[in-house]
């Protein structure tokens, strides 16, 4: 294997995805508007909660938006990443996939380049959320290094979801089916996590599920960083678990893709 060529192939697949992403004006608008709506709406409707001292204690912060911001970052990563596989199905339909495959490029470069672009898109979206959050008065306790860590975790999570989606898209050939399966996956992942409600406020059975849900690890680590500080024994295990999951899913995505194109 020639690493230089592999990296070059990944770069060009990535370049294509990013160029296309930046051309989609409507999608870029959504990237800004969606988190804005979430933050403003949720922040307003839930702010009453934090006036209740008991609730404030459960949230671990006196500001619901402080609590909510990492959750929204992950939610955006979740919905962004999980549709990553649709680009493969689209490329297969338009014939662009064959165009790439007829070229002397490494097969693995196609899923890797796409995942990388999903990662970067997620980071950009997370950054926009941070900026909006700052305008709405959210406080990030660990400052700029903390924000960078938040972006990195969001990116990692985007790649995890992209890995699931790309793996599925090697088997599922229809856009509609992939969308349906993705929705079927994302909704429960979201609502059985601590992204919007603190686990302490959950019934015991849900709490059990929430603790095992990878979405919760990511959100928990991010929430610790943004509202409490560098509490490493909280952050590191979550990061290790997320990295492990990512490696497995990226490998799976590459394997299934390579098999699907023989």
């Amino acid at each position, binding site marked *: 294997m020639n690493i230089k060529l592999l990296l070059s192939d990944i770069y060009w697949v990535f370049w294509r995805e990013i*160029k296309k992403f930046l051309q989609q004006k409507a999608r870029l608008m959504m990237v800004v508007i969606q988190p804005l709506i979430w933050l403003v709406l949720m922040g307003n409707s839930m702010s009453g909660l934090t006036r209740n001292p008991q609730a404030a204690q459960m949230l671990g912060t006196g500001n619901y938006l402080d609590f909510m911001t990492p959750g929204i970052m992950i939610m955006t990563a979740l919905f962004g990443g999980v549709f990553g596989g649709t680009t493969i199905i689209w490329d297969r*339909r338009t014939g662009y996939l064959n165009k790439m495959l007829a070229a002397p490029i490494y097969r693995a470069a196609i899923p890797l380049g796409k995942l990388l672009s999903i990662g970067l898109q997620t980071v950009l979206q997370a950054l926009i959320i941070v900026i909006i959050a700052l305008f709405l008065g959210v406080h990030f306790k660990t400052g700029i290094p903390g924000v960078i860590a938040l972006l990195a975790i969001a990116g990692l999570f985007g790649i995890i979801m992209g890995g699931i989606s790309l793996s599925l898209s090697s088997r599922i050939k229809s856009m509609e089916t992939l969308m349906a399966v993705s929705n079927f996956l994302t909704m429960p992942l979201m609502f059985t996590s601590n992204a919007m409600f603190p686990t302490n406020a959950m019934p015991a059975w849900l709490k059990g599920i929430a603790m095992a849900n990878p979405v919760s690890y990511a959100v928990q680590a991010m929430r610790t960083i943004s509202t409490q500080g560098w509490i490493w024994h909280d952050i590191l295990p979550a990061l290790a678990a997320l990295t492990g999951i990512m490696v497995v899913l990226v490998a799976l995505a590459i394997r299934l893709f390579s098999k699907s194109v023989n």
Partner: protein
Amino acid sequence: MKTIIEAQGLTKVYSGGILAVDNVSFSVNQGEIFGFLGPNGAGKSTTIALLTTLLSPTKGTATINGIDITKHPYQARLELGFVSQDLAVEDALSGYNNLRLQAGFYHLSRTEVHDRIAEVLKMVDLTGRSKDKVETYSGGMRKRLDIACGLIHRPRILFLDEPTLGLDIQTRREIWKYVNTLREKNNMTIFLTTHYMDEADSLCDRIAIIDRGVIKTLDTPTALKEAIKNEVENPTLDDVFLHHTGKEMREDFTTKEESFKARNNIRRARR
């Protein structure tokens, strides 16, 4: 004359059990325009997919400029350019960026990329429009850009799968002109498929008539027509086709995917 493509017993059975290409053997000479003529579903695209290493044969193999496609697919890819029947250009990017991307996929060095892109743009007369987004192009321009993409690495052999599908007759003639120039000026070998009789007749040096995965006959258009002169007066390729397959060309799309692509192509080409 040098043989540049040599197919020996190429066979493809799809996973559903469909025998798409059935023990096909033929050879293509360097510098000729070789046509695969057959109705939809005959196995033309599958044959091209096998020769361009997009699919691996169930049985048999082929060599491209002496390179065995099953043993050395990577090397074979460097020798060939592939232009699919799907009009696979990126609408959201400029013509230049479509070519830039293609140059990246073929590992062209940064120093030569710009000249090479200018070279292929000139070949298909798109130099003036290269900075515009492809979504502003007409159907014929898109096809020419797609062909330019296939030429970026100066391949020895260009595979064109139904290069004029969905284009109007004027634009089709225009594409023929470019294909002819490629062969004449660059001594390129061109392997194309078509289900248009007139295209095969006026463009190809030799034609293989393929139906249901089998090559029925293979010769120059003139010789094919000569051969049935006793049966039909002033035979056309239509008569040749009828003679060898026992039927007229049919215009049906065999799979859902195929018809989606065809509709998509025609829609895009009409713009």
